[in-house]
């Protein structure tokens, strides 16, 4: 598990999903971010860098 998502902070803006180069992230039915392909994560940190809500962290 390299991704830590704090769901209560996520507002579903979708920025992380749009900038993830490996399509790891997607919005759930209730518009919260989920790691749908965590196995593809390369830990580049784009999601953490761009999240305006401090809701996703990449654990190295």
């Amino acid at each position, binding site marked *: 598990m390299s991704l830590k998502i704090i769901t209560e902070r996520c507002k579903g803006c979708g920025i992380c999903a749009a*900038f993830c180069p490996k399509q790891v992230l997607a919005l759930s039915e209730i518009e919260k971010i989920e790691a749908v392909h965590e196995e593809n994560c390369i830990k580049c940190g784009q999601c*953490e*860098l761009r*999240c305006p809500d*401090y809701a996703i962290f990449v654990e190295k």
Partner: protein
Amino acid sequence: MSMENLINKYFRPGRLPHIWCPGCGNGVITGCIVKAIDKLALEKDNVAVISGIGCSSRASGYLDFNTVHSAHGRALPVATGVKLADPSLKVLVVTGDGDATAIGGNHLIHAARRNIDMTVVLFNNSIYGMTGGQYSPLTPQGSKATTAPYATIEPAFDITELAKAAGATFVARATTFHAQILTDLIAKGIQHKGFSLIEAVSGCPISFGRQNKMGGPADMMKWQRDHGVMLAAWNKMTDEQKAGKFPIGVLHEDNSRKEYTEAYDELIARAQGGNK
């Protein structure tokens, strides 16, 4: 330190989630501020963050330093008082484009003119976000606003040029897309002794983006990526290529002018020493 630990250390985490809309750039800029402070290893008690009023100015309430959430346009006079009372403090000012350049525009030019040592992070989302999308002096000409349903007819200030002309001795610009560069520039601004202004170009998807059909939050960040040009590349561009774009990086630095609190201390020493 990991970003998660930075948030726990420098924020008041119990105040999160913050009030900003989904995809608002304010959270990114506020994150860059704490990364810059951490990079410089400043003591929390040695930092004061003063803000005005606006969505952006809410940032001071989330940060665990000495903070003042002041009145609309008045962050700089409050910050000037704080800095003069204790010049050893690192003073940061968090302000919006409306806060800093409309109601607070006069304070901005005079703080710059005095070259007082503080670092202004100007959250430029091109609009009055908090009050529902009225245009500001930094709204690009031709943009729609609730006060300009047929689009603005007035040109915007280039706030970096204005700050430089008024006497600021460190002037820089980045965007929320260029978050790492923004962090570096804020750190440089804090290190600079004198008046520093960093324009942080930010997306307001709700009050600006919707009216101007800029797409969603990620599209607004991509717009920043495609319109912000590193200074070295910018300097090689023709006027035609520059149209609609803007340079990012350190745009002005002058280390020759005396800083205001230093001049004030000299005045005190002179007066108390009885020197004629």
